[in-house]
């Protein structure tokens, strides 16, 4: 198999010319990200429950146990285990395995009894404020009730004190709790998915539908040259979209970007490739441009609903989380939030990269299998 750069270049050039002449699509590719950014920039509120929570417990008494039990029955918190140091808790918050870390200070019960108003610390990953918000709002009431129920009899006096204890909420990563900060990175994943998948699928199907594909493959051009030449221009579109998007996010919503740009770049490229592969797969199934568009939209829905973009991932039921895990957008979303808002580097996002790589492998395998069939 000899690869011809002349032919590959010709296909690439042709694709660019066609893209430029198709004004509406071209305008959409740049306009849609900005439009959606503005639309979604507004808060989407929800009241998620069962968020993963870790406990750093330095006191074992009945009051402490009552507090934890109260948090559990409130259904907001889902206790996943014990941490023994602050570093462990911080790491869990950063990599997303916990949304909350509850720190009960040593001698908590003793201090309550003595009326010293000790402090419970609730550290929360506020990069997703809609997830943390409701639980944070509820915590004081829950703990208060638990303490009052436990402190009966001779200890009753302690409970009736004005403030037997206090809860300090420590919001990490997004101290102001702004929803747009969280929405914006997620939206990038959705927009990229939408344009990459749909445009690739449509561009390939268009060629088949208009009958130009047959004439094209009747020339000496190799299928690989055609595919590469058709897909490359859209990689560039993805770059432009992302650049436009990040700038808009920075200037309009003041979304920070504190992590490693290299980590983001690596994850972003992998995500683009996954989406192009998906678009390619759809093009082998769809019979018309209309179908390609519809199937693309169909794949977009789970990306919006189950990736953690619309609803906090941890708050979704188990089956939805399972589906969500198979969606590339889920991993890109986590990765982008970690890098942009939590300052993650390449090592912190390796699990997301790995997941995307596996999804890509599956898609490419199926797509290539189908592509051989349709050539015949």
């Amino acid at each position: 198999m000899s690869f011809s750069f002349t032919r590959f270049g010709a296909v690439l050039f042709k694709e660019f010319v066609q893209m430029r002449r198709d004004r509406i699509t071209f305008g959409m590719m740049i306009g849609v990200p900005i439009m959606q950014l503005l639309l979604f920039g507004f808060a989407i509120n929800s009241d998620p429950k069962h968020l993963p929570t870790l406990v750093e417990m330095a006191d074992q008494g009945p009051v402490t146990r009552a507090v934890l039990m109260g948090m559990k029955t409130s259904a907001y918190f889902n206790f996943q285990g014990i941490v023994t140091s602050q570093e462990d808790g911080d790491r869990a918050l950063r990599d997303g395995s916990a949304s909350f870390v509850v720190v009960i200070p040593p001698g908590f019960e003793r201090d309550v009894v003595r009326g010293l108003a000790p402090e419970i610390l609730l550290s929360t990953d506020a990069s997703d404020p809609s997830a943390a918000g409701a639980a944070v709002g509820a915590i004081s009431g829950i703990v208060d009730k638990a303490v009052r129920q436990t402190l009966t009899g001779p200890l009753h006096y302690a409970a009736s004190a004005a403030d037997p204890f206090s809860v300090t909420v420590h919001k990490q990563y997004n101290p102001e709790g702004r929803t747009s900060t969280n929405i914006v990175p997620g939206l990038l994943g959705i927009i990229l998915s939408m344009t990459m998948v749909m445009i690739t699928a449509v561009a390939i199907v268009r060629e088949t539908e208009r009958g130009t594909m047959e004439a094209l493959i009747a020339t000496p051009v190799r299928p690989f040259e055609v595919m590469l030449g058709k897909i490359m221009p859209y990689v560039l579109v993805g770059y432009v979209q992302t650049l436009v998007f990040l700038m808009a996010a920075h200037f309009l919503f003041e979304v920070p970007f504190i992590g490693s740009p290299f980590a983001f770049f690596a994850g972003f490229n992998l995500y683009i490739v996954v989406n192009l592969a998906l678009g390619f797969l759809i093009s082998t199934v769809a019979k018309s441009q209309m179908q390609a568009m519809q199937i693309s939209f169909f794949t977009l829905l789970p990306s919006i609903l189950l990736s953690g973009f619309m609803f906090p991932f941890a708050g979704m039921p188990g089956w939805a989380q399972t589906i969500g895990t198979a969606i590339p957008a889920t991993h890109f979303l986590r990765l982008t939030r970690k890098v942009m808002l939590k300052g993650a580097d390449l090592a912190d996002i390796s699990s997301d990269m790995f997941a995307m790589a596996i999804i890509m492998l599956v898609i490419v395998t199926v797509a290539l299998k189908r592509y051989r069939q349709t050539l015949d």
Partner: protein
Amino acid sequence: MNTGDMAISVRGLTKTFGSRTVVDHFDMDVPKGAIYGFLGPNGSGKTTTIRMMCGLLIPNGGSGQCLGYDILTEPQSIKENVGYMTQRFSLYEDLTIRENLDFIARMYRMKNRKTDVDDALKGLGLTDRANQLAGTLSGGWKQRLSLACCMLHDPQLLLLDEPTAGVDPKARRDFWDEIRRLSAKGVTVLVSTHYMDEAVQCDYIAYIAYGKKLIDGPAPDIPDMIGLNTWRIEGPNITKMEAEMRRTAGVEQVARFGSVLHVSSTDGAALDRVAAEHRKKGTYHWQKQKGGLEEAFIYLMATATDNFTEPKEAAE
């Protein structure tokens, strides 16, 4: 015949899609330099056969060569040397005329691309309109541009799949003038068509129905092969006579040419009896004649309905 004299020579070509056999043990020999007509109703397998002959589809069975290259193992060489004009208009409507030609030239990695494209534009008489979008051309012009694209790399063999479908008669005549010019230069042309007036311009004919070849040979031999007996009828109120003939048993085919009626049948005796009866009346002038190409093609075309469903009886 020696296969060295053949531009295309295939044996037993078979193609199935799912459980349907679309082309069934198809043999064909296209002599070099000939204009070879490939006839058959819609869905009979013409396009599929052509695709197999130029390496776009892999046959399930059979073998053959195209310009000396094996259709199973050397599709790449066939693609380099054949000009294939697909059934549908297959240029990029959103590219200009020049961009289309230039794109094709790059696909064949032509050395003197610029000159060849300029020459093609000049040959088409489109030099002034080179920067017009191909999509704005009329049907006839699109057809000519497609042909020019196929001929850009100077192939020795042209495969034209219903090149004149949906084109007005004047443009069709021009198109055929062009085909004959190319043929005179030594290019072999295989052309599938629906039109009888185009079929009569071919040197050789093959007819396919339900994926099976029914008849093939030099065009002048086709009427005898079909064995059609024909009477020519002239006289007053030919329209009424035409209607009557269509109802008459023993007459298989009625064709009207202006004020003249040709009635034909493969059963000569039955037709002669009809003629004898009518001649006694004397109103019309009946004359027996040798069946021509026209009747033969009308006969072939008439027996053929669209082939998209399975044949009702045994194929034919």
